[in-house]
C-alpha cells in the first residue's frame, strides 16, 4: 500500500480521504468464486469440476508456502500427491488476476523470476489447515449480496472515495 502514497510519507499521513486498499480487478468467478489475502494466507474456494454442489477450500500460507486443499467438510482433496493440486494452481492463477502478481507475491513472500508462474515458485509442503474458517468467510462474503440497500445516507462513506479510471 505504500507505493500508492501520492507524494511521500507526510502527505499520506495527513490524508483523511484515501483508498488504502487498492480496488481488485474483475474476473470470471465460475471456477474460483472466492479469493482473498487474509489471516496470513492466500485462501479461497474453488468450485468442483464434477459436482455442482461441492466446493474445495484451498489455502497457501504466507512465508512457509505450506498448502492445504480439502472439501468444505474437511475431506482431503484427492489431487494432493505431495504437490499442489489443480485447485491450488487455479487459486493462485485467479489471485494473480484479481490482485495482480506483485501484490500476491509480496503477500506470500515468494520470489518469482521474470516470466515464471508464481505457482511454480512455492516451496511448501502439505500441511492440514482448518477449512471451516475459510469456508465461513466465503459464506459471509456471499451474505453481503443479501443485505438490503438503503436510501438513508451513510456519511461515513465520505472517507471512502471511489477511484478507478486511469487515462
Amino acid at each position, binding site marked *: 500500500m505504500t507505493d500508492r502514497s501520492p507524494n511521500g*510519507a507526510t502527505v499520506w499521513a495527513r490524508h483523511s480521504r484515501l483508498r488504502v486498499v487498492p480496488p*481488485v480487478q*474483475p474476473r470470471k468467478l465460475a471456477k474460483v468464486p472466492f479469493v482473498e489475502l487474509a489471516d496470513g494466507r492466500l485462501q479461497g474456494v474453488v468450485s468442483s469440476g464434477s459436482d455442482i454442489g461441492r466446493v474445495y477450500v484451498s489455502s497457501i500460507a504466507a512465508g512457509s508456502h505450506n498448502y492445504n486443499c480439502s472439501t468444505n467438510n474437511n475431506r482431503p482433496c484427492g489431487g494432493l500427491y505431495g504437490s499442489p493440486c489443480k485447485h491450488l494452481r487455479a487459486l493462485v492463477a485467479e489471485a494473480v488476476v484479481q490482485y495482480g502478481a506483485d501484490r500476491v507475491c509480496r503477500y506470500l513472500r515468494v520470489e518469482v523470476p521474470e516470466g515464471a508462474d508464481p505457482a511454480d515458485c512455492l516451496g511448501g509442503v502439505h500441511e492440514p489447515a482448518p477449512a471451516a474458517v475459510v469456508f465461513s468467510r466465503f*459464506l459471509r462474503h456471499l451474505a453481503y449480496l443479501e443485505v438490503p*440497500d438503503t436510501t438513508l*445516507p451513510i456519511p*461515513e462513506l*465520505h472517507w471512502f*472515495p*471511489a477511484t478507478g479510471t486511469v487515462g
Partner: protein
Amino acid sequence: MLAVQLAALLGGDSGKAGEGAEEALALLDGFDDALVHGLARLADERAEAVAALAAAFAATPLGDRLAEAADAVVSGSITQEHLTALAGGRVALSGAVHDALLESLDTALGRERAEWPPAPDGLGTTGGAAVQPAVQPAAQPAAQSAAQSAVQPAGNVLGGVRSWLRELAITGWRGVDHDLVSAADQIVEALLAAPDLRRLAVLLDGFAAELRASCPIGSAEHLPVRRWADLWTRALLLSQDGVLTAEPRPAATVSGRLLVLGVDVHEHGTAVQFQVHAVLEPADGGRPRLLRTSVAVAKVDTIAGPALWKLTQRHKLLLAALADRRCVEITDMPLLDSGDLVWDDDHAFVSKPADPLAAARLCLSGALAPAVPPLDRVAVRIAEPVLVEGYKVTKDGSFDLGGTVLAVDAQRLPECGPLTPKLVAASSACVGLVRWDAGRWTLQPLAVQAKVKREAVVVATGDWALGPTDPKAAKAEARAADAVTVLRERAGRLLRR
C-alpha cells in the same frame, strides 16, 4: 465559482482553515501519533501529546473529564470511559476545524447556509460553537447508556465494538495482527443484521479491511495516520448507545422540481454509495435549496465498475434521471435534518431534460445550503457543489482561474462512469465538489463540458446509471455482471437458509 471567489478561498494563507486551525490540527496529529504506537506504549513525547489534547479543553466543561482521562491513559489504566472522553476531545477539535473550513468556503462562495435548529432541550447550537454539541453524545456515555439500555437491543453489539476499538487503541496500528483484525468479523456481521446500525457496520468493515490488507503493519513504512485515527474516533462515537438511533432526524416532506448536479460515488470492498447532489425548486415557490439523496448497497470486492449500478436497480426512476439527464418532479418526499432526501421512486416522476451544467448555471448560485448536523462536522464530509467555467487547464491538470490555481482531484473519478482525467483536462466547464483534505482545497469533478472531435459534449459520472454507453465498457460490464449471477448461484446453493 468565480475567479474572485477562488482567490478569496485560497488567498492569504492558502488552504489554511483559519485562525487556530493549524494549532488544532497539530493537537490532533499528536494524539494520532499516539495511536500509531498504541496507548499501552506511550513514550514521553506521546504522553505529552495526549495530555496536550486534554489541556486544550481546560477552560471548557469537558476539561476535568479529559484531564482525568489523559492522566489515567498515561499511567496505563485505559478504560472505555477514558477512551470515549479522549475521542470526544478529538471529535470536538476536528469539528471546530470543519466549522472554520466550511465558513471560509461559504464566505468565499457567497453561499448562504441554513441554521442548525436548536435542540428542544437547549443542548443544540448554531454556527461556530460546534465543540459542545459535537462532543455531547460521546462525552456522556454513562448517562446515555443508562437511559437507552431499555430500548437498545443492539447494546451488546455496540459493547463489542467498543471493546474491539479499545484493544486497537491499546495495541496501536503497529501492533495490529491477523487475530485482532479477524475479531472484527463477527462484530460487523452482527451490526449488518441491525438496520439502525448500518452506518457503523459499513465504517467498521471498511476500516478492518484496511488493517487486514496492511498486516503485518509493524514493518510498513507509511501509515495513513490521520485517516485511521479519524475512522477509529468515528467508530467510537457511533458505537455510543443511542447515537445512531438518534439521527439524522426527519425534518419535513418536500415537493418540487429536483435538478441534478451530479453523482458522487463512495466505495470500499463491501459497500458502495451513490450520492446525488441536486437543487430543489420547491413547489410552493420557496427558495431553492441544495440537497443530496443517496442509495447505498452492500457488495463484494469482485463486483466493481459499471456493474455497481445494477445493484441499485430497485431505484429505476432515479437511475433513469441520471442516465438521461433529466430533472425529477418529487411529491412529499421525506427530507432529513442533514439535508438528505430519502429517495423513494413512488414519490417521483422523471420530467424535462436538464444536464448538470445547465442545472448548475440555472440555479446553483442562489440556492440555500443545508445545515450540517453536529455529529457530521468533519472536514472529510465537506463536499460543496460548484460550477467552474473560463479556466485554463494547467500541465498537472489543475484549473487556472484568472491566475488562481485550483487543484483538480482526477484520482477520484469513479470507474463506474465515463468521466476520465483526459476529459477533465479537455474541459471548458465543470460541475464539481469542493473538498478539503491534507491541508488543501481540491475540486472533485462530477460533470464536464468538453470538446471531443470538435463536438461539444457533456460527460457526467452518472451517465452509465442504466448501463455503459461505451462498447468497450459494456463488454467489461457484461463480464462483471456475470460475477453477480455466479455469486448469487453459489449463495443459493451454499448459504444455509
